[in-house]
C-alpha cells in the first residue's frame, strides 16, 4: 500500500510537510497519463471547434485530426495498461493537516468517484448503441458481443487486404496484365535509350544541300 499525498494547494502547512515521505507517489505513471490526457483533450477540443465553424474544413484535414485523436487514444490506453498495476493500487487520501472544515467542498470534489451526469449519459448511450441490455445480459453474452465486434473488424481488415492484393501498385502493368503473363518490370523507372537506338548519319547534310542549291552532282 503506497501513500498518496494530497495535491499541494498552497495552504500554509509548511512545517508538517517535512514529516511526510512523498517518494512512493507514482509520479511517473500519473504524469504519463496526465500528459496523454491533456494531448487528447486538446485535440478533441480543436476538432470540436473546427466542426462548429460555418465552413466545414476539408475532408482530409478532418480525417487527419481524427487519425491523430485515435492515435492519442491508443497511446493513452496503452499507457494506462502499462501502469495498470500501479494505478490500480493507488489510493488518494487527504493528509491529516488538510483543513477539512474550511475546505470540505473542495475535498469532496477532489475525491469524488461518481461520474458527473453528463458522463453517465454518454456511458448509457454507448451501452444502448451496443445493442446489449447490460442488466439482463449474462457475462457470456457480453463476451460474445465483444467477440463478434472484434470479428467484424477482423473481417474488414481481411477484406481490405484481399482487395489490396488485386491491384498492382508499381510498374507499368495492371494486375490483370501481370496475371495474364506480362513480365513484371524489373525497375519502375525509364532508362536512358541505349546508344544503339541513336540514328546514324548516312551522308553529310551539307553535301546534299550543295547539290540541291548548285546542282553539283559528282
Amino acid at each position: 500500500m503506497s501513500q498518496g499525498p494530497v495535491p499541494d494547494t498552497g495552504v500554509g502547512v509548511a512545517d508538517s510537510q517535512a514529516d511526510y515521505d512523498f517518494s512512493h507517489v507514482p509520479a511517473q505513471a500519473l504524469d504519463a497519463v496526465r500528459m496523454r490526457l491533456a494531448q487528447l483533450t486538446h485535440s478533441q477540443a480543436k476538432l470540436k471547434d473546427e466542426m462548429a465553424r460555418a465552413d466545414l474544413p476539408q475532408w482530409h484535414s478532418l480525417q487527419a485530426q481524427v487519425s491523430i485523436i485515435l492515435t492519442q487514444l491508443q497511446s493513452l490506453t496503452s499507457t494506462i495498461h502499462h501502469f495498470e498495476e500501479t494505478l490500480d493500487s493507488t489510493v488518494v487520501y487527504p493528509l491529516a493537516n488538510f483543513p477539512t472544515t474550511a475546505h470540505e467542498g473542495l475535498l469532496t470534489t477532489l475525491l469524488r468517484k461518481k461520474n458527473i451526469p453528463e458522463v453517465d449519459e454518454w456511458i448509457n448511450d454507448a451501452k444502448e448503441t451496443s445493442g446489449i441490455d447490460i442488466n439482463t445480459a449474462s457475462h457470456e453474452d457480453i463476451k460474445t458481443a465483444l467477440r463478434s465486434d472484434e470479428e467484424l473488424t477482423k473481417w474488414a481488415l481481411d477484406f481490405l487486404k484481399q482487395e489490396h492484393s488485386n491491384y498492382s501498385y508499381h510498374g507499368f502493368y495492371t494486375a490483370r496484365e501481370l496475371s495474364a503473363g506480362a513480365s513484371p518490370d524489373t525497375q519502375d523507372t525509364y532508362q536512358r535509350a541505349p546508344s544503339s537506338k541513336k540514328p546514324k548519319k548516312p551522308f553529310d547534310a551539307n553535301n546534299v544541300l550543295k547539290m540541291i542549291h548548285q546542282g553539283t552532282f559528282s
Partner: protein
Amino acid sequence: MMLQLSLVSSIDDASYDLFVSTLSNLCGNPPVVFGNFTAMLKPNPAFDIEQVNSKNQLVEQSRIKLCRGLPLQEVEADNAKRDFRLLKKYQNDEVQGLDLQIIQDMLHGSRDLDEMEVDGGSNKGGSGAQDVWSLSISDIPTAGSGRKVSTQAITETTVLASGGSSPSIVSFLSELGYVLDFQLLVLGIKFNMNNGVFLELSKIWRLNDGRTEQITKGGFLVKAFVNVAKSTDIKSINSGTTSLLALQKELSGYVELEIPDRKSMDSRLENKNDI
C-alpha cells in the same frame, strides 16, 4: 523578302520509324506526306551579262527556283496508305509510280489541272490553263561567327498561269533570260512542331536524262525551319530562333540539329565573288 531560319541533320533509313514515332509524340500530331518537283534555272550562259545594274551596284547572278507540288495520287492511289510509311518504299534510285513525262509536260507546256489534282491544292477552272508554280530566288545565308541558326532571305512570287502562243513556263523564262539548269524530285514528311517550327524529313532525287538518281541514299535529310514573313521583324526573328534552339535542345542526345554550311546553301552562279 522573307527570312527562313533553319537547322539541319540527317538520319539513316533504319532509324526512320523510331524518329517518326518520337516526333509525332513530341508535337502531338502525325506527319503529313508531301512531294514536290523543283526546276532550277540559271542565266542563259550564251548571254554576256553585266555584273552591275543601271545604278552601278554590284548584282550577283542568281539561280531561279521553280517549284510545284507532285500529284501524290500517281505515287500511291490509295488515300489510306498515303502516310509516312509510304517513304519506306523509296530507298533506291527509282521513284515508283511516278510518270516523269507528267513532269516534263508541266514544264514545257502548261498542263490543264482539270486532269490532275495536286495534293492539297484546289483546281480553279476558268480562264485558260493553270500553270501554278512557286518562283523564288534565295540569297546566301547571312554570315557571322556567333550564329545559332542559319538565316536565309528568300524573294518569292507565285505564277498562276502562262499565256501566249504555245504557253509554257520554260518558254517565258527563256524570254526572261533563264534556261534550265537541273531538276529535283522531293518526297518527304513534314511535322508541325507548333510555335511556327516545321521539321521536314526528305528523300531527294536528281532527274537526269529521263532517269532518277537518289542523292539521299541510305537515309533522309532533316531540316527544321521557321519562316519569318518580314525580314525587318526582329521580334519574330528572335522568337523563331528561340523556338528552333529549343527543338535542337529537345532532340540533342538523339539527333543533333546543326547549322548548315552557308556555302552549301548558296544558289548563286559559280560563286565568282566569295561574298
